């Protein structure tokens, strides 16, 4: 019962702050709302029983990605933009597309999974994850590390001031 209340609070915080992150007007507020929403997603991982991924989420998403976005917003010089008129036709198309996607998958999930409960599942612990990651999925793991390296170098080359 108590854990249900906590679950609903986390669920609502994620949804409300995700909506704020999309619809607020100033980018710095959007970035902070996204940070709060993503921080609560780590709570969802705890509810599912994936503690390592929750820690990873807090470290990488909240600690690195959000901070990088906020950093870039704060580094850019201030510009005074007047709120622009959005093209209402494009807004309509965007909202209809997203709602169609939502409706279709909602019907699918509702028909297939409404009322499904998790059984007595023992999640793979971090030991197994590490073993599989270093043996069966060693090649994708190495490719990901090369991608990260290339991303770092690419960001430096892109942001370098040309003389």
């Amino acid at each position, binding site marked *: 019962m108590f854990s249900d209340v906590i679950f609903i609070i986390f669920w609502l915080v994620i949804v409300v702050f995700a909506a704020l992150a999309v619809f607020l007007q100033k980018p710095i507020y*959007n970035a902070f709302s996204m940070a709060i929403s993503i921080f609560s997603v780590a709570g969802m991982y705890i509810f599912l029983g*994936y503690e390592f991924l929750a820690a990873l989420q807090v470290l990488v998403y909240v600690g690195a990605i959000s901070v990088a976005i906020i950093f870039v917003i704060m580094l850019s010089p201030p510009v005074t933009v007047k709120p622009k008129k959005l093209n209402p036709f494009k807004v309509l198309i965007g909202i209809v597309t997203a709602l169609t996607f939502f409706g279709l998958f909602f019907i699918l999930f509702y028909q297939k999974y409404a009322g499904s409960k998790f059984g007595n599942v023992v999640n793979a612990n971090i030991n197994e994850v590490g073993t599989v*990651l270093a043996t069966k999925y060693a090649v994708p793991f190495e490719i990901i590390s090369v991608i990260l390296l290339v991303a770092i170098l690419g960001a430096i080359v892109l942001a370098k001031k040309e003389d």
Partner: protein
Amino acid sequence: MAGSLFPYLLLSLILISLGLIGILVRRNLIIMLICIELVLNGVSINLLALNKFSVNGSAMGQILAIFIVALAAAETTIALGLIFLIFRHYKEIDAEKLTELKG
């Protein structure tokens, strides 16, 4: 509530749809990047919930989620570098105004 599957799927669906609306409607490049992060988080929740529900004790969902986190970090790095470059060059990060590549 926390023991049933459907709330997690609904949450991931809401996050993906909100991100989709943001990518399609908002024209600020940084906000579009934020929306991409929301979509990736929704995908992670979906993967992990269905992994727990259907594949008993498999490590596959966690490995995919780790890959998603790493790719999101790489993508954010590149995107922020590009946004910074565009801002310095055009003094503008409105996606509607960046028409030079449109032909």
